[in-house]
């Protein structure tokens, strides 16, 4: 069998175009990497010192925690979370998490933007935690 490549030019051109398109996100973003954002805590959050879990756990696993919370609250009607230190929390994104972290733009959004994730929690859960604070007083 003769080893010959038909339509060599077309194939090579096609491959080059494919590689360029497939790697587009990499070279398009070259040099644009933003520095890791620094989180700002509200005074209330600072005063609390520790969140529901340790900071490292929260950083890595807050989404799983929230997922667990929402299933527990909505589907099993369990609304109380007692952490390993015996402190209990009302499992509520709107009323517990955002009560301390009422600076959504500086706390939530910064990191989410950096990680390029767009959770749609705020489509339903209060998007303006400042208003929440005021309403309570």
């Amino acid at each position, binding site marked *: 069998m003769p080893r010959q490549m038909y339509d060599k030019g077309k194939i090579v051109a096609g491959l080059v175009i494919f590689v360029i398109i497939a790697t587009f996100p990499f070279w398009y973003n070259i040099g644009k990497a933003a520095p890791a954002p620094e989180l700002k805590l509200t005074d209330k959050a600072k005063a609390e010192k520790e969140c529901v879990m340790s900071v490292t*756990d929260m950083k*890595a696993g807050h989404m799983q925690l929230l997922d667990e919370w929402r299933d527990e609250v909505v589907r099993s009607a369990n609304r*109380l979370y007692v952490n*390993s230190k015996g402190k209990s929390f009302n499992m509520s994104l709107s009323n517990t998490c955002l009560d301390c972290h009422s600076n959504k733009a500086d706390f939530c959004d910064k990191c989410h933007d950096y990680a390029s994730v767009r959770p749609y929690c705020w489509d*339903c859960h*209060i998007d*303006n935690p400042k208003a929440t604070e005021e309403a309570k007083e």
Partner: protein
Amino acid sequence: MESNRRKFLKVAGISALGIAGAKPVLNAFASEQEEEAQHADVEIRKNEKALTARQWAMVIDTRKLQSEEDLKPIIEACHKTHNVPDVMDTENAEYDEDNQRHVIKWIWEEEYKHAFPTKSTEFLDDRLKNLPFLVLCNHCENPPCVRVCPTKATFKREDGIVLMDFHRCIGCRFCMAACPYGSRSFNFRDPREFIKDEDRNPEFPTRMKGVVEKCNFCAERLAVGKQPACVEASNGAIAFGDLYDPESEVRQLLKSNYTIRRKQGLGTGPAIYYIV
């Protein structure tokens, strides 16, 4: 509870692996064990004040609700508490008569002939003919909406409440076809356009477009020991309690009054009773 804790540990374990990131695998396992130790005594449970029942039920005494004026505060209390959008608010920039198609209601009023179409008769007595009836989700004992939902986004809770999990709803609207009471509304558009910031109850989430919603029997209030908002606003015209507790207020009322239910013949077991 046990299974919940296990599930949580699993989740924590996986997230621990996530933290490990570039660290050697061995290290990751070590940190997973640490996690487990830390989370071993996490507890997830109900609030002590939470009200519980086998099947929550409601008795609406129509003798105490004579006019539209009597119903208005009840409806308002519910819709405010739960951030139900008012798409027919004429002051809203998005107002359009056609919005009627997209109306969202949890509890509203109907004439007798619409609330009870199978019991209606031409020669109805004047009182019933002109009496406004409160209608809402019946929290059926045998709910067709729960039967048809392809994702268990609507489900029957232990205490009999037929609840919506808005996070899970795919918006197929099968439940709306299945409900024989027209109790369900669909968010054809973003509801937030119709909830004024100052009216919004920050303690209760709004919904997003593309999901079905309906009355939740104030599950969030029962969880902290409060009666449903409509009951509280009704000045004693609406009683709420456990249908299977012979001592409950609803059972006392059912024992001493003749009550009717909507489309009882369909076998859905509606839990809203009307004293007429």
